[in-house]
């Protein structure tokens, strides 16, 4: 980071700018040091040595365009937003130079220039405010809270804490866990044939009425689509197996209709 150029904590905005030749050189060297076109514009504006409110936006536009031209001549990579700003300033310049068109409903060149000057002034103001804020006496550096953490240990109580950042990160972690997962067969989403057999056998003892296959799925396996699919597949296979053993009856009205199961009746009532 080109601290010398950017460190506003040591350079209030009404400080006269350094030698312009030095600054011009810095501009050449430090394209990457600027935090975007607005930052660069603010730097250029300071070279005008006037109150930001009295700045010549036309001159500023020219300074900026000259900078961009020079940077390109030096084959420096300029990020797209610098070029967008250049295009906008070229347009602004033309609007400032040409006589105002008939009322076309768009803001005039002067209004746009005032808007830009305002943005620069506001950014500068915020930087000064930030510097003033950081220069204040600060807790733990200039003034202190009590050093010892407790006075009386009459009744110890554990207080659990968590910050909002912890909470948000916790949620983010849970919701994106899948994104990180390496490509592995996810065993936790597979309901095995053995599990299904065991479960169905246990349930079928009491299943006197017809019940949909889906209603026999275990809790926790019905909502997540992957788990549900696995549970249905293994339960279906298990049902076939049990039917073969004569323990359950399976009914389906037509192709792709829901499957119904019930315990096999040995009085011959099955189909």
């Amino acid at each position: 980071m080109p601290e010398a150029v950017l460190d506003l904590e040591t350079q209030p905005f009404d400080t006269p700018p350094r030698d312009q030749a030095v600054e011009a050189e810095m501009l050449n060297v430090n394209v990457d040091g600027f935090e975007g076109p607005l930052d660069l514009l603010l730097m250029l504006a300071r070279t005008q040595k006037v109150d930001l409110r009295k700045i010549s936006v036309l001159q500023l536009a020219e300074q900026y365009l000259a900078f961009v031209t020079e940077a390109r001549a030096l084959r420096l990579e300029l990020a797209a937003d610098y070029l967008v700003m250049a295009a906008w300033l070229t347009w602004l310049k033309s609007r400032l130079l040409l006589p105002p068109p008939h009322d076309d409903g768009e803001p005039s060149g002067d209004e746009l220039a005032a808007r830009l000057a305002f943005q620069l002034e506001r950014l500068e103001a915020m930087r000064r405010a930030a510097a003033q804020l950081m220069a204040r006496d600060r807790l733990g550096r200039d003034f202190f809270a009590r050093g010892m953490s407790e006075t009386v240990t009459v009744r110890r109580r554990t207080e659990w804490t968590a910050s909002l950042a912890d909470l948000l990160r916790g949620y983010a972690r849970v919701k994106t866990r899948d994104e990180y997962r390496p490509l592995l067969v996810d065993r936790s989403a597979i309901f095995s044939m053995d599990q299904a057999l065991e479960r169905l056998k246990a349930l079928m003892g009491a299943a006197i009425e017809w019940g949909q296959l889906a209603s026999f799925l275990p809790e926790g396996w019905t909502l997540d689509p992957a788990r549900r699919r696995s549970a249905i597949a293994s339960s279906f296979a298990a049902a076939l197996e049990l039917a073969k053993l004569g323990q359950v009856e399976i009914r389906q009205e037509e192709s792709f209709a829901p499957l119904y199961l019930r315990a096999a009746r040995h009085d011959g009532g099955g189909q």
Partner: protein
Amino acid sequence: MTLMENAEALFDAPPPAEQERMVEAILFASAEPLSLAQLGERLPHGSDPGAALELLRERYRGRGVSVARIGPGWALRTAPDLGFLMRREAKETRRLSRAAIETLAIIAYHQPATRAGIEEIRGVSLSRGTIDILLDLEWIQLGRRRETPGRPITFVTTVAFLDHFGLESARDLPGIKELRDAGLLDSTPPPGDAEEDGPEDQDGGIEDMFGDEPE
């Protein structure tokens, strides 16, 4: 107040000097600032925490430790002019990036501030982690969503922020009045001649921003 409560108050409330001692001990033992309401809860029934606190503030005036107002609360803090003696207590503070410092200032002066608002002022997009760092320091927290399209979330500063920077309230931010008067906390340039000082009352947003008085 019933007769019963009245009587209780009469018999139970300790004399003012004793209440002052109690407030002193409670503030001394607490790491975080405590509001008058919190002090009241801990004092015996019928006490007047406001009056006790006033006595205590008077007593600590000019001492090595003083009673500081922090947002809605009060806490004991060492006098800033003695900071040089405490160097060995000073914790290594994380050096904040310029982006984080500016973002913090923008949130503090423009709160409640949206991400888009911060980006507009800085003219660059907010990099990953900047907000994260400030949340982690507990200097900012989520505010109300702004009732504009998309209901963007907003950020506001916390009591810990006030405590860290020794501020009584967000109204006491350095230079905030001048910035407001100059229209620099508005989202658009002052109407008409930019050199004219904006009228006092045009900053509805700011009033809104600091709507809640401490206490």
